[in-house]
């Protein structure tokens, strides 16, 4: 009854972009596009190989962002595994870095809520946050419950937010976020701003009633709204075939009359191209887009069970999964198409950087991450009674625990 043989483990992966950048640039301008598989067909030719226009600096920044996310995740996982004093936790994003990076590279990432493009995140926010421009030190301190953290220690990982860069916040619920995000898009359109709103959401969001509400209102009101659905095949411990009758969730866009694009989420360039297409469309007042990025997470749903210090990824048993967990072979197969490796290869192949420079960037990223965690660990803890602040803008509420 629950078996949808249509879409088990044999996920389609678009062929990696390995051709030389010059060639692709020309090909894209001529209207051809060799590396998109179904995406092109889905977007009815609207997509272009927009990475052709990126400067070397922009490309290097994208590569750097991917590395910053990767090493943030790995460093934090190691800290959780080795430092018994450490209290932070994470829903690790490692494996999905190309999605956040490619999308945010197409966005305006400063100017506060009246200027920046706005990104709504999920319970798995650290990658989105870094890609959107959140300060790593402040985030590390927040995740460590520090009074000087990004959100004063009130938020921790699941509620990180920084409106200044248009990072509207992580959200611990599955469903409501995208609906709220369409409201931001509605306000933006009403005030005549050219901002766009991106909502990140997992494959798990598909089955929520909110999914329909989001796409329907985005379509009806022609909102500057982009739903980036990161299909990493699982919502917690269930394969998405438990909750979705179609193989490509992007197919859900069709009845609403908005484009549904499938993109290879492991390839930052492909993600960027798709995002840029959608962002241009939104800014031009042409409405919403649903982008489904096929991707995978290397760690288990939450925390670092099954992971080993110094090693990437987690395999096998996850105590939280109780009776069902991901096959180790599936994890390993996906790790063969690692977003960091793919990005590195493209950068070198395109002559943007050489192998030595790539190593140099990685080394300085590692240092930056180490510094951020070290800084965070020295920050002050919260004052207990501050829990009574920030309920309303003004004042504090009364303590009631003492009777």
């Amino acid at each position, binding site marked *: 009854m629950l078996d949808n043989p249509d879409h088990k483990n044999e996920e389609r992966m678009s062929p990696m972009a390995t051709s030389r950048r010059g060639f692709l640039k020309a090909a894209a301008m001529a209207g051809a596009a060799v590396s998109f598989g179904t995406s092109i067909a889905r977007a009815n030719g609207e997509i272009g190989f927009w990475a052709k226009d990126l400067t070397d600096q922009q490309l290097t920044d994208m590569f750097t962002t991917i590395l910053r996310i990767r090493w943030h995740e790995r460093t934090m996982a190691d800290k959780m595994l080795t430092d018994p004093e450490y209290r932070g936790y994470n829903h690790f994003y490692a494996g999905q870095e190309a999605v956040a990076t490619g999308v945010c590279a197409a966005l305006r990432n400063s100017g*506060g*809520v*009246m200027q920046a493009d*706005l990104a709504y995140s999920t319970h798995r926010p650290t990658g989105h946050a870094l890609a959107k421009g959140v300060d790593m030190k402040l985030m590390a301190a927040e995740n460590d419950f520090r009074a000087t*953290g*990004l*959100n*004063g*220690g*009130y*938020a921790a990982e699941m*509620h990180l*937010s*920084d*409106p200044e860069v248009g990072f*509207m*916040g992580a*959200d611990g*619920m599955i469903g*409501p976020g995208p*609906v*709220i*995000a*369409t*409201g*931001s*898009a*509605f*306000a*933006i*359109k*009403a*005030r005549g701003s050219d*901002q766009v*709103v991106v909502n990140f959401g997992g494959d798990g969001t598909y089955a929520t*009633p*909110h999914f329909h*509400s989001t796409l*329907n*209102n985005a379509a*009806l*009101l022609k909102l500057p709204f982009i739903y980036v659905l990161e299909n990493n095949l699982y919502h917690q411990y269930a394969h998405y075939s438990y909750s979705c009758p179609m193989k490509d969730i992007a197919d859900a866009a069709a009845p609403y009359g908005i484009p549904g694009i499938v993109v290879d989420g492991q390839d930052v360039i492909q993600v960027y191209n798709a995002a840029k297409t959608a962002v241009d469309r939104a800014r031009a007042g042409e409405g919403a887009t649903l982008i489904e990025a096929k991707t995978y997470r290397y760690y288990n749903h939450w925390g670092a069970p099954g992971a080993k210090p110094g090693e990437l990824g987690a395999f096998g048993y996850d105590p939280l999964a109780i009776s069902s967990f991901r096959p180790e072979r599936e994890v390993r197969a996906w790790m063969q198409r690692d977003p960091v490796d793919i990005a590195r290869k493209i950068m070198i192949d395109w002559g943007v950087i050489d192998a030595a420079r790539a190593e140099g960037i990685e080394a300085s990223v590692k240092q930056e991450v180490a510094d951020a965690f070290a800084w965070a660990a020295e920050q002050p803890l919260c004052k207990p009674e501050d829990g009574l*602040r*920030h*309920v*309303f*803008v003004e004042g504090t*509420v009364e303590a009631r625990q003492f009777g």
Partner: protein
Amino acid sequence: MARKSWMYSVLEAVQYEMQQDPNMLWIFELTPPVASNPGKPVINLEKEFGRGRVVNTGIDENWMVSATLGAGLAGSRAATYVPYQGACMPFQVIQNHAGKLRHMTGGKASMPVVFVMEMTGQTPGFAGQHSDYEIDTYYAHIPGVKTVIPSTPYDAKGMMVSALRDPNPVVYLYPAGLRELIEEVPDEQYEVSLDKAIVRMEGSDLTIVGSGASMPEVMKAAEALKAEGMNVEAIDLRSLKPMDTETLVNSVNKTKRLLTVDQSYYTLCPGAEVIARVAENVDGARYKRVAFPDAPPPASPEMFVWMRPNADHIIGAAKKLVG
């Protein structure tokens, strides 16, 4: 100043704020933001501000509230009018998002938003879902939203102005049964505070506390009791969260008798909170509650009208308490 209906007074408040702030939005579903009043221009927000800012949605109250919240987060003031039928559809997003986001972000979330939640409860004949009056408690338990409930056109306008100007999310409960009330209401904008109860009649024998749709019957009973010589102090809560403990305690310290009146179901009705707050602070008082029984409202007018608290019930309870 002119005699105005509740509905007209409220839309006057909204119209003025929308004229001042070109970014402000209004989202509605069934009840078009239109009102007329003798001797006054018709207010039609949809016409005046256009569909870009005043949107008529599909039947999706969760979207209405979520979108209002999202507009606020993006820096635009926004308000929505949710018809009573859908008043619990957006419950989760108010409880888990609007009410918590400021705190969860360490103060970073911007939420200058108003959720106008219509309440019913006055009309016999419609049964459980269309004659119920119960959401006051659900919304008042949520921290981080101000939950207010006016009971007069004057307060309805002044509290709407305050709500729209408040940087906090406000759940503005709107008892539909009072929409037709008419009284003198100023033409200009004025604010009525969102955290103060008001003493509507002063007295020393007994404190009667109500809110929203129970107030007309409370006042009727209070007048009748006063005419019979009982010195009633009548209080209109106006704000359920935060609740104005001080006004309540001061009154009962004087009267030593407290009767609460609610149209909401007995168990955990606002009156329960009123009694608990007073009981924690006043010694030796006596207490009684009048409320709708813990039963859905039945369709039959005979059953419904018997169950719904009215002035006679209040008078009877007052006499038991004081006598």
